[in-house]
């Protein structure tokens, strides 16, 4: 049996959202949806898991705080303690109020940059990567639903048409 990919194009995000729900309730697997902007509620309708980007930011922030603290501890207390303005740097905990700004900046620096790098890696985005969108209009005003079907395609096509697709294309895998 041959496997085909069907592309259903939509003009409107509300029609798309209704169609996604209808198609998934018919036990048809949607491979991917491409859209020009984030469609509210689409991730839930597609049954996507919640993203864990915020958790990574928290972990990276903790890492930044720890490494920043370690750096300051080594530089100010361990390696070259000085008595600046009558305030000796013999202990970390006595001097920590003065270190708060840098500790905060280190936290934000690590959280923001490492989360963004994680985001790019997880999405497979890098300078010069090729877009794998099947239709160039999906960054403009079209919403595209990609469905892989084994064997007979007519029922899926009819369902797409019924739920409001304005254009249906197919490709043999």
């Amino acid at each position, binding site marked *: 049996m041959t496997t085909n990919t069907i592309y259903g194009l939509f003009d409107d*995000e*509300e029609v798309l959202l209704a169609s996604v729900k209808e198609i998934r309730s018919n036990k048809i697997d949607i491979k*991917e*949806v*491409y*859209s*020009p*902007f*984030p*469609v*509210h509620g*689409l*991730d839930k309708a*597609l049954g*996507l898991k919640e*993203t864990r*980007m*915020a958790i990574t*930011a928290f972990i990276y922030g903790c890492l930044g705080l720890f490494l920043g603290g370690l*750096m*300051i501890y080594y*530089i*100010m207390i361990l*390696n*070259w303690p*000085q008595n*600046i303005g009558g*305030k000796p*740097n013999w202990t970390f905990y006595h*001097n920590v109020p*003065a270190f708060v*700004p*840098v500790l905060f*900046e*280190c936290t*934000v*620096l690590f*959280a*923001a*940059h490492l*989360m*963004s790098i994680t*985001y*790019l890696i*997880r*999405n*497979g*985005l890098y*300078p*010069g990567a*090729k*877009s*794998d*969108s099947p239709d*160039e*209009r*999906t*960054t*403009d*005003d079209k919403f595209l639903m990609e469905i892989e079907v084994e064997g007979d395609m007519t029922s899926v096509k009819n369902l797409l048409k019924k739920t409001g697709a304005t254009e249906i294309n197919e490709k043999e895998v």
Partner: protein
Amino acid sequence: MQKEAEIRDPLILGKKSYHDITKDVSRPVEGKANKYWWILFSLSFVLFIWGVLSMAYTIGTGIGAWGLNKTVNWAWDITNFVWWIGIGHAGTLISAVLLLFRQKWRMSINRSAEAMTIFGVAQAALFPLIHMGRPWLAYYVFPIPNQFGSLWVNFNSPLLWDVFAISTYFSVSVVFWYIGLIPDFAMIRDRMSAKISPMKKKLYSFLSFGWSGKAKHWQRFEEVSLVLAGLATPLVFSVHSIVSMDFATSVIPGWHTTIFPPYFVLGALFSGFAMVETLLIIMRKVVSLESYITIKHIEYMNIIILLTGSLVGTAYITELFMSWYSGVEFEQYAFLNRATGPYWWAYAIMMTCNVLTPQLYWIKSIRTSFVATFILSIFVNIGMWFERFVIIVTSLHRDFLPSSWTMFSPSFIDIGIYLGTIGFFFVLFLLYARTFPVIAQAELKTILKSSGSEYKNKK
């Protein structure tokens, strides 16, 4: 689908579809520059060259090329530094704080406001660099081991906090900006024809990182934007607080005050919004974005200027009160001298432009007029520059020893460097306006149906 109250004014005017937004945003990138663009660009470029020559002269001969003296050892350079950093703050406020508050009107202006932040902070960073006198030793400000020739940096010093704050602020702003730009670069890439402009197509393919708009990617995009906004919000407040601590932790009367951090942050937002208005009122005409940057956007910003301007005025009066209430005669003299001494005119300009003229925004016809807003925004820019000048120069020019009392007058080089950074800023901004999607079109499309005038009238 997002809902919005019916009584709110539309944020997108005219009969627009998603495709119209695409076309309008890519038009400046695809088309040729008009006459006004070339005139503005040439003017800015001349100023920029003057600035480069002045900086080169300063680095070649030393800081003596400036009008500084032993008493007034900080003047224009630090004034300009604080001014530019402050201007940057509005960009982050619009893109981060207003995102957390779910303010939809930020969407058509956040891209340009952030560009302003990045270019403004870049100008600001130039000043400490050339003030070092020997900029090739600039790496001394980073924590590098003692074997490099200097001692470790001092983590108790606000000047070092500044290094960390500004470099973090700059790099996080760039990342935040770029994450939002990726989908818009992809939009331009997909519109470019490989036959007509193959180089441009390649360039935008490179810049768009292969973005295709998958559902999972958008889900991550939204969360990453939200978390970056959450990180940028305390960051932006920390940056100007730390800049103010450069002054507040010293023992100079007029600087040594605990009100400085909130007062500087408010002043930064105040001047930043004024600069956003100056830029956007020009830009909406030059690249025809009248449907997206509307009088409603300008009015919202004017309300913020009115609020922050009044708070800045309160801070000025609080400072005066505290100097009297403190009972310290040196403190009292510093403030009396500020208002009535030889620099009374600078103080008067500051008070007029920052406290009095923004009060005109109570009048609805003024805050909903492009011409009035443009003029008043220039007033605020001038007033905020003078605020920093007043704080720095008037506090220093009356030294502890009356025999050291003196005045400051800028040299030709001082003026050249300041105007040069204004030129450099506009060169960058004008280049940006022709090569970047100046409106966050992907985000804007999400509010078309809830805030577009055509859709609102239909209901």
